[in-house]
């Protein structure tokens, strides 16, 4: 027989169960809209699946006849574990699974079933002690209060202060504590046999979740999110750099060490401008070299040309090229460029690699990050450009991204001057990329450059470039005028200093 005190405590139990259940649901909905976008769809799917799963749980509860209290506790522990790890597990799985939406909804379904089982079981446990009307009114009241608490606190308190991963783990722990506590509350209804084992299991669940909470720092991206200004859907620290992908608005964004690399909504402007002037200007290009560009987006543009026999992409970071190969949204964006048999990925420092390579190329596309530190700065030096020249056919064409000529004119013209002093003929051009502003590029060749190339009607899929847009890129507006700069050499690395001054960044 249960005494009076535990009875009221059991209502508390209902409250916690209800809060946890709803928090898991909200987590799944938020996470889905973070990573997949389109929050209306995601939330309505999640809510629908969750509610119907609760119905399934309620219906299944009729098949449970014996050991109600024990089964109730088992379910609570299972829920604690599953709900607790739901957000971190989904985050971790996201980059690497093709069937993310089914995985997420499946998880929501199982959680819903378990939550759906809980209340009927608890009501049946309590029915011996209470009037039926009393029972229903009290249990449902606490259930709805729990739901209210969860829905208010989740957006106001938990997400902003704990983030999704920690909220998930924290509620798992709360859920587990309640489960363990119930082994004492419901002690009179539990047989002594196997009680210790049950408590041990509860203990293990709590330990697991607590460890995960302590380690959550590596997953917790709150601080970064506030810097990057979007919700982070993936983030890793490779030996070379911090890679973060955020979702904001309709698109997603790639950041390397906090520097925006592209926004999926307008990257086509950048990559069409970067790639096609060289590809169209060259005789049908066969061998293409891409330096940097681990996102595979320049590769995507190059693969539009049937003449291309091979593309060698040299990017320092295997974590970056790996992400482009496997991370679903990115893989979709680059049209699975890395699966094309013509593409060869080399993970090496381009500076070291270029001194050792012996192929000669028709086209080279240089898409390095901006020269914000010395180890990138060396890739913009006359030494590097001279080594690059040795890797090019005499009539080869090169395009290069060279930061913003409006924000950082000295940096921009320094890059051009350095190429020129390494024996390249050079022509500046610019394009507008909303996420970046006005962006600077240059077309270069060991030979004098001809006219701006016309588009080739057989190359399809271009969204930004037209013949007019192409010509317009090479018409410099009045506020982009050459400024005198020094030449960037290994032994002065003047470009890093210009860049630093102009973008006001430390290092």
């Amino acid at each position, binding site marked *: 027989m249960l005494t009076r005190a535990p009875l009221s405590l059991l209502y508390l139990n209902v409250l916690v169960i209800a809060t946890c259940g709803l928090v898991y649901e909200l987590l799944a909905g938020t996470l889905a809209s973070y990573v997949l976008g389109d929050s209306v769809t995601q939330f309505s799917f999640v809510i629908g699946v969750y509610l119907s799963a609760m119905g399934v749980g309620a219906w299944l509860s009729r098949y449970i006849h014996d050991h109600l209290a024990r089964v109730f506790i088992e379910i609570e522990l299972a829920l604690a574990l599953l709900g607790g790890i739901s957000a971190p597990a989904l985050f971790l799985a996201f980059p690497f699974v093709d069937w993310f939406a089914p995985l997420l909804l499946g998880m929501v379904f199982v959680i819903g079933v378990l939550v759906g089982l809980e209340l009927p079981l608890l009501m049946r446990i309590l029915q011996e002690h209470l009037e039926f009307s009393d029972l229903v009114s009290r249990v449902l009241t606490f259930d709805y209060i729990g739901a209210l608490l969860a829905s208010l606190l989740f957006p106001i308190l938990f997400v902003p202060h704990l983030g999704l991963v920690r909220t998930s783990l924290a509620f798992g722990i709360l859920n587990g504590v309640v489960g363990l506590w119930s082994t004492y509350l419901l002690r009179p209804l539990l047989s002594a046999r196997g009680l210790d084992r049950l408590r041990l299991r509860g203990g293990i669940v709590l330990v697991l979740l607590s460890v995960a909470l302590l380690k959550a720092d590596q997953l917790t991206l709150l601080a970064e999110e506030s810097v990057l200004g979007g919700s982070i859907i993936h983030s890793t620290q490779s030996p*070379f750099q911090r890679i973060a992908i955020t979702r904001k608005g309709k698109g997603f964004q790639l950041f390397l060490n906090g520097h925006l690399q592209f926004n999926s909504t307008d990257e086509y402007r950048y990559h069409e401008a970067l790639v096609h002037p060289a590809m169209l200007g060259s005789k049908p290009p066969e061998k293409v070299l891409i330096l940097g560009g681990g996102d595979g987006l320049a590769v995507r543009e190059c693969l539009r040309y049937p003449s291309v026999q091979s593309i060698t992409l040299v990017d320092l970071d295997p974590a970056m090229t790996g992400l482009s190969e496997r991370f679903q949204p990115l893989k979709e964006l680059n049209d699975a460029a890395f699966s094309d048999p013509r593409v060869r990925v080399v993970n090496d*420092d381009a500076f070291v690699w270029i001194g050792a390579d012996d192929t000669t190329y028709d086209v080279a596309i240089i898409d390095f990050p901006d020269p914000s530190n010395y*180890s990138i700065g060396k890739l913009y030096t006359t030494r590097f450009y001279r080594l690059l020249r040795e890797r090019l056919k005499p009539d080869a064409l090169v395009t290069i991204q060279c930061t913003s000529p409006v924000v950082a004119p000295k940096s921009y013209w320094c890059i051009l001057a350095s190429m020129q002093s390494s024996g390249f003929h050079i022509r500046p051009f610019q394009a507008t990329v909303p996420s970046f502003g006005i962006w600077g590029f240059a077309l270069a060749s060991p030979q004098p450059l001809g006219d701006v190339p016309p588009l080739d009607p057989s190359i399809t899929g271009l969204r930004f470039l037209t013949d007019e847009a192409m010509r317009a890129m090479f018409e410099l507006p009045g506020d982009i005028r050459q400024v005198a700069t020094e030449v960037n050499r290994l032994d002065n690395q003047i470009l890093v200093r210009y860049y630093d001054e102009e973008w006001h960044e430390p290092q």
Partner: protein
Amino acid sequence: MSPNKHVDNLVPSSRIGRVDALSRRELLQAVLGTSSLALTGCNRTALPQAGDYLAQDFALGHRLRDPSATVALPTDWQSVPVVIVGGGIAGLSAGWRLLRQGFRDFLVLDLEREVGGSSRSGNSGRFQFPWGAHYITTPMADNVELIELLQEMQIVERLEQDGSPIVAEQYLCREPEERLFQNGTWIEGLYPALESTEDDQRQLEEFQLSMHQWSQRRDADGKRAFTIPIARCSTAEEFLKLDQLSMAEWTRQQGWTSARLRWYIDYACRDDYGLTIDRTSAWAGIFYFAARLRSDRSESQNVITWPAGNGHIVQYLSQLLKAQLRTGQLVYRISPTKPGRAEAQSAQLQPADDHKTESPVYLTTLDGQTGVVRGIAASRVIFAGPQFVAQRVIDGMAERRALTSNFRYSSWLVANLHLSARPRASGFPICWDNILYDSKSLGYVVSTHQSGIDHGPTVITWYYPFANVEGKLSRDQLLRLEWSEWADLALTDLEQAHPDIRQLVKRIDIMRWGHAMIEPGPNFLWSDARRSAAQPLGAVHFANTDLSGIALMEEAFYHGVRAADEVLANGVRSH
């Protein structure tokens, strides 16, 4: 590397005698100097599992010092017109000069199994790294011979109108060149600028101006007061008198009291000469700065460096001299008469005796590996080892001993640390040269810097000069400490800037340089003793950096070329 190679040097500290224990501890403390470092003895668990413990070849070197180690008389004699003893920069440069002048009939002998002397380098398969000398400065237009060598090596690409060399970009030290760890963070450059006062700044500017003025000073004949090589410096009294006082004293006389400036100058003295500011001659101290400034520019001549350090030059020259080089050959006697003349073998000897010059010189050599003793009769010998060896090896040096007895040498310890990744640090990013303000070491040089390998494993070279310890005592200290103790000292020193260094280090190779550098203390550089030591002795000519009184590649090169020219001027002939 030299044959006394140990991999297992993890000697437990219990092996250290009890009486000795305290003084060892004090010694360990003294080496790093910083009182904040509470060395508790060797922390064995925190050391990497392996490392070489190297030194200049003891086994062979010992033969020189121990007169009782009688060596058999040579049975096998050959005659060679010219023999160069010593395959350091000086000896190799002499060989280079002979070849360039079309003379091929000579040998270069070195007692070590690897040539290069204090400019040699190591190789881990993946990386090259220096064991000693690691850079040179871009020569001025008038150092024609050195420019010739550098052109031949394709390091100098072409010359400016006035003959100044233009060095290929990849050999000039890549920016960022140097940083200093001060007050818990790294700052750019060498000067400890953090928390410096206006007065510090003013004194620094005065000092820089003064060095610039010295770099422009010329004597009545138009000779520069300070230039490289030293042999081309003015000998006007107004300049030479600087040699009579220490750099510390001279600094004081200028009214410079800034502790930061003193640190900066002291660092320069320790770095170039292995001596503290108060043990360095003021002439040498000023030379360090002024000789590298072009009179028309305020910036120092650019540094030229390679992953292997000056080992790059050694590799080039020894490749060129492949046919002439013999390593593992100790020359332990050079004498005007044939050893054991009474013996029957003398009949077999046919030295080149048809020269107008003096009679031949007889060299006795010991093969370090086989123990075979051989004799060489040579018309001319270039002795390119240091003077302290010359004293022991050359008959007839006795009278000269008075001259050369004040040639003193400092000791250095060099550790190459093989790291699995770059150490974490705050502030200015990693440079080629990384110096610690609060340390007696000179910090470290990054071997991969010049090749542009900026991530992942690397080898860093840690330099420790015994800057405030007299030569003999320093050699004693150098040899008393075990590999594990030196490894621990290096790590403890670096830990102040890189707390994660012990996790990153996979291997530490250590080299003890007993007679590392000639010491340019006061009253040595411009003494008669130093100047006349380069005079030939009979048919023996001398070439080594110590003849300049300072240890520099350019000086060793100068003496090598000079000695080769002396030999050629004497009309040696090929067989």
